[in-house]
């Protein structure tokens, strides 16, 4: 199995006519209801291209032809370059890649087991762990370093990532300046603006605030990043029942309208700027209003959103593999597996939140990363499916072995076992007695041992000295400019 050549697209939840209906209704939402844009320049750009803008309410109504015209400009494939080109992401079609999830603030300490606030050291360690875990393809902003200047915290985190993994990097900006500085960091690692255009070394995400609201700093960042041609994730995160309709399709419709609004603006600013379709929606638990990150509905919503994005021929950014559990327990295993299976089978190109996340995206742990890597390995096997050829049908071997024989001694068995069977690295398949003889270890303990082993032995090719220095200088300058 080649973890760098995974394909989904086998799981669908919407019929073709339903996809077209959602598309038409989304255009109706944008034309009849409009969207709130908290930024004068964004409103002016939209108005210039034919939107009906009410400056007092800041609501722009976008005509259908304007949105459809913008959609036609979006590239349908996207290269996201990694320091190691073998680890590049080719987001297109049904290709599937997995990455970690967005910005929890708390970590379960690997040594003490206690929950504490995330630090810069965690960013470095997690990046190195991700570098070593074979089924995690990219680094997405995955822990908030709470011990650095919060005004530039995302820069510290991404710097830690560039230094500690050669996998592809993605981040959420904390401000407009942060978005531009993240882009500048990508330019430094790429080796200049022209080199970045060939091999973009970062993708930055911007989300609407549901329902139908694009905030000031995200709009400013979309405009600024579109102008420099930086790849962007543009999407939204409605929560069914609170910030989105309760029916799942209503929530998908809202996501489509919000995402189209953001993408339209980006294409008006810079035609053909690479954008990725974003849906990270789930539901609220209506007994409390809390974000249900582990909800099984998230898988269905993301599968539907992937179908919409494929209808528009856009690369997709999706979610799957989260849990609301506080510990790495059965709840975590069930919630994560069900979600990730649906999103991956649906063919999400750039699936984040696929590892490490717990408790409404607030908590992460080292052991959970290692466990989730195993889960992603198993899901990767599912994506491979069943290959039917005259060789794999094994008629000749069944004939050769005949009744009452066995297949262990065949070259054919040896040739195919590696490709056909997923071999767990972590999960235990021994008998009770042999498991007991090996210390009767709970999977969490095994995962912690594996994490410690990786962190004490895994080495990452360092950044060239001058790149390292330039990144540090960029952060120093940002701190001087924006203060502490």
């Amino acid at each position, binding site marked *: 199995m080649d973890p760098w050549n995974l394909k989904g697209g086998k799981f669908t939840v919407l019929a073709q006519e339903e996809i077209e209906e959602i598309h038409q209704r989304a255009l109706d939402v944008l034309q009849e209801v409009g969207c709130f844009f908290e930024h004068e320049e964004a409103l002016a750009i939209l108005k210039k291209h034919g939107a009906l803008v009410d400056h007092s309410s800041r609501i722009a109504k976008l005509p259908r032809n304007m949105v459809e015209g913008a959609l036609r400009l979006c590239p349908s494939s996207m290269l996201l370059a990694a320091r190691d080109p073998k680890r590049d992401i080719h987001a297109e079609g049904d290709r599937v890649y997995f990455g970690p999830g967005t910005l929890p603030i708390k970590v379960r300490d690997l040594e003490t087991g206690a929950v504490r606030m995330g630090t810069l050291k965690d960013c470095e360690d997690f990046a190195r762990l991700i570098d070593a875990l074979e089924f995690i393809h990219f680094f997405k902003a995955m822990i908030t370093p709470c011990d650095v200047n919060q005004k530039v915290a995302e820069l510290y985190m991404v710097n830690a990532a560039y230094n500690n993994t050669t996998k592809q990097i993605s981040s959420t900006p904390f*401000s407009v300046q942060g978005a531009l500085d993240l882009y500048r960091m990508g330019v430094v690692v790429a080796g200049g603006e022209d080199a970045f255009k060939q091999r973009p070394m970062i993708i930055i995400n911007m989300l609407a605030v549901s329902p139908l609201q694009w905030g000031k700093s995200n709009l400013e960042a979309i405009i600024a990043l579109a102008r420099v041609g930086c790849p962007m994730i543009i999407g939204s995160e409605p929560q069914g029942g609170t910030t989105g309709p309760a029916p799942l399709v209503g929530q998908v419709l809202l996501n489509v309208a919000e995402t189209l609004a953001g993408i339209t603006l980006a294409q008006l600013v810079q035609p053909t700027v690479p954008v990725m379709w974003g849906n990270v929606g789930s539901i609220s638990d209506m007994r409390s*209003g809390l974000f249900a990150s582990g909800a099984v509905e998230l898988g269905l919503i993301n599968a539907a959103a992937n179908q919409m994005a494929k209808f528009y021929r856009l690369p997709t950014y999706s979610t799957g593999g989260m849990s609301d559990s506080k510990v790495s327990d059965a709840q975590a295993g069930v919630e994560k597996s069900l979600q990730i299976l649906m999103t991956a089978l649906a063919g999400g190109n750039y699936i984040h939140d696929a590892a490490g996340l717990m408790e409404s995206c607030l908590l992460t742990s080292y052991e959970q990363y290692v466990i989730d890597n195993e889960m992603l390995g198993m899901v990767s096997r599912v994506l491979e499916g069943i290959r039917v050829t005259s060789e794999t049908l094994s008629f000749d071997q069944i004939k050769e072995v005949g009744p009452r024989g066995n297949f262990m001694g065949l070259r054919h068995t040896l040739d195919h076992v590696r490709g056909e069977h997923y071999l767990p690295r972590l999960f235990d398949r021994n008998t009770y007695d042999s498991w007991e003889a090996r210390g009767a270890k709970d999977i969490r303990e095994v995962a912690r041992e594996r994490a410690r082993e990786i962190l004490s032995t895994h080495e990452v090719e360092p950044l060239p000295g001058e790149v390292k220095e330039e990144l540090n200088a960029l952060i120093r300058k940002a701190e001087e400019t924006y203060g502490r």
Partner: protein
Amino acid sequence: MSEIIIVQLRDAIVNLDPDKAKEMAHRGVDEGFDPLDMINEGIRSALDRMGERFASGDLFLPELMLSAKAADAAVGVLEPELLSRGGSAERIGKVLLATVKGDIHDIGKNIVALLMKAAGFEVVDIGVDKAGEEIVAAAKENRVDVIGLSALLTTTMPGMKEMMELLQESGVRDQYKVIVGGAPITQEFAEMIGADGYGADATRAVDVTKKLLGR
């Protein structure tokens, strides 16, 4: 007879029926009942029951919201009556709610507002993206007992600390209880900035506020 109208008013709220609630309020007034009794024994007791059921996980948010709307419909009839007689409904406290500067996420704050109202607090919700100065000014202007601050983003959390400092500097810190909440907020953070309370979720925000006001 009096009990029947109060029971029916209570039922109208529990059954999420604003028209019926309004009708019962009118009937009560027409039949000469004390509006304050109707508010306390009809409306408040219905909302208390809804609040308890929500806290124990038996109700969905929309049920709570729609019962509050039904209650508002009845209060709309009873309050003018009460005022015209020189009375006023007893409130257990007045709470100002805001999402701090740089943050436009408001669903958490809105859920807290709903639960606070259902628990009998008067709520002044000044919205999102509010700087410390605006919050302090609104607290003074509205003479509130409690200031509740919300943030979803880790980057906007310092806005809470800044407001605490502003309260100190303007010498009015002891006039308000301050509670904080939102996804990234923790008890440690609340203590670090010197807030009086922290609500891990909306239900607990209400409990903490009641305790702070000695209720």
